[in-house]
């Protein structure tokens, strides 16, 4: 069993492995970075560090919603990189049994460009397990 952070983007429920998560932050505003990829909401300052925030609504092709007080930034660490995932809300920490993970239906996998690496069911709900390195743009290569 591994701990996962469950969150919501649009109508979908997702989860990331808690071992990749540094902390959760409330979200008010990010500094727009001209020229950065569209899915980058901007830069925030977290504990003295500059962290780029990926807007998962844009990233997942969900229509932009109103910012609410529930918005959270899930600060993740992948290798040496630290980035934030902007989500609609993040409330639960759930225990998931990785051996029960199913690969996403092929069509879903293709259509989401590999953002989803598995599907898990927990307490009668479906959670899509997010491939964090993919989502924070391992394919992005500029500079």
């Amino acid at each position, binding site marked *: 069993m591994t701990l996962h952070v469950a969150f919501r983007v649009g109508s979908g429920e997702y989860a990331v492995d808690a071992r990749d998560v540094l902390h959760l932050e409330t979200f008010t*505003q990010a*500094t*727009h*970075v*001209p*020229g*950065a*990829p*569209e899915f*980058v909401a*901007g*830069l*925030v*300052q977290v504990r*003295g*560090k*500059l*962290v*780029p925030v*990926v807007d998962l609504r844009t990233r997942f092709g969900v229509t932009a919603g109103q910012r609410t007080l529930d918005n959270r930034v899930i600060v993740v660490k992948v290798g040496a*990189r*630290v*980035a934030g995932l902007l989500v609609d809300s993040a409330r639960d920490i759930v225990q998931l049994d990785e051996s029960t993970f199913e690969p996403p239906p092929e069509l879903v996998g293709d259509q989401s460009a590999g953002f989803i690496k598995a599907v898990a069911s927990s307490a009668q709900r479906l959670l899509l397990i997010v491939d964090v390195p993919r989502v*924070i*743009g391992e394919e*992005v*290569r*500029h*500079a």
Partner: protein
Amino acid sequence: MSEIDIQEFVGGFIAEADQLVAAATAGLLELEMANDRGEARPKTVRDLFRALHTIKGLSGMMGIQPIVDIAHAFETVVRAADQRGGRIAPRAVELGLIAMRAVAERVRAVADRQPIAAPPEALLDELARVETLGETTSAPTPAIISSWDRKLSAGERQQIATALGERRSVYTLTFTPSDANSARGITIATVRADVGKLGEIVKVAPRAVPQTDDAPAGLVFELLVISDATTSALAEAVASTPDRVVPLAALEPPELATLPVDDEISPIGRSYVRVELDRLDDLQEQLSGLVVSRFRFEREVANLAATGADVRALREITDAQERQLRALRRGILRARMVRVAEVLEPLSLLVRSLVKPGIKEVRLALDVGDTELDKAVGDRLLPAIVHLVRNAIDHAIEPIVERERIGKPRAGQIVIKCRQGAGNRLVLSVADDGRGIDREQIARRSGRQTVDDSDLLDVLTTPGFSTRDHATETSGRGLGMDIVRRIAVRDLGGELKISTTPGAGTTFELEVPLTIAIIDVFSFECSKQAFVVPVAAIEEIFELSEHRRIEGPVADPGRLPISICERRGRTVPIIPLGMMLRLGETAGAHKALVVRRGGEPLAFAVDRMLGRHEVVVRPIEDILARVPGVAGATDLGDGRPTLLLDLVELGASITTWRAGYSS
């Protein structure tokens, strides 16, 4: 040094190490002869120490631990000899010669890319022992026993000095407790009593020694005694032999004895502490916190003033704080400064490893005086200089045959100069006397004619541009130049210039800030977003409404429209910054920020100026937010990042800008 392939230093290391081993060996042979004549050679010992210390340092840099270990072990012995006024036991000299052979063998192994053998255990063992027995193995001639110096109080020191002044004899006696001695009823208590009858005991100190048959307890007692008795009487009192009675000629001056000699020989007269850069960074981080909270405070004061409150007393405090912060900042910056000469030290090693004796020779001259710069800047700058030097050797300097044919001196010359420029900036130039850059060739390769030097630099620093078809041994594919520009301009907020004369050589000039930690910026607003730019980058700021502007034509609607105005007798192009950055609607641009790009003025239209601040700039590390034209971000006191723009870099992408694309 991250950008430098360590293999490239190997050649230089071998040359340097060979030379040092040869020097050390010669020194040891000289010491051997001096020992035979009963003379001391303090200077030779000190030179030997330096050679060993350098061997150790170089090997450490290369990560060759076996050589580090051998050099360290022998260095310890030599340091002890140095502290004894340059006297070194004959056995120690022999061991030193063995150690140097062991080092030489391992240097060969490095050259042949063979595995490097571990240090000989027996040698290290004996070196460790010879060190501790140094005092007793040396001949019983007058010696300076500095081991006492650290243990003596001022009063005891005075007592010795007086005795020596009265030409009385002072000795160090060593009593070794052993089973045999205790069987004969001899203990340190009886020794004290017996010696006390022969003279004045100044001090008794226990000392740990390696366990041997002679010293089964691993412990000896040293007695410092003023006595007129014979050495044999004294020896008998400590159950020893007269050759173990060591006369003390003089005490070393106390300031010598208390100098730290652990890691290097410090120049006398100045004292140093070595501080990790991390600690200074930490201090600076604290300072930046203070700077930010002062911004906040000042803003609150301004808010208070806006309500009509009397804030004169508060203003006095904030003014004082500003001065104090400035002083504190200066102090910390001074602590971070290192000499440019020190930063560039690895270059001579590099050059030596890159030249091919008899085919291409190069002399490196450093003309950098006593200029200093921030350690952090120096560390970032070095890879850029390495690239330039490497390029010069590889591409610019001609082979000897060619140089002699055209009447140039046989060896090529690379001169690195530096001076402190205006506005806390350092100007560093790398000049070679090679063939210069062939514009025709560059034009053929890039498909672009270059009209002047700055144009040429643009082509040379285009990522991926190379003047060579094949990768060369030292310069790779000539990819260095964009890296040099990136380091100078983007990483350090500086400038890179070039001037080249065909046949006569090329000079690169880097202008970088002396320190990158805190900079002066202007803040401004553009399409409701705040930005900052370095004050040093801005030539002037003018009011747009005061000038007649002419809209320049655009070839197609997708291009960035540029207007022109006249300023101080020159036409200045004006770039709509908000549009260029795709920031959306602007309330109307009122101000123009003028920068200089390749000598030409270039203005950016912005909505309004906000202020001037001293800020701490943080680098943007993640690729998601690293974009051309954004050099970093800072906190103006609101807890949110404000982007630091590099307008000169932005200026470079004007011609490739197209509406609708995002970079």
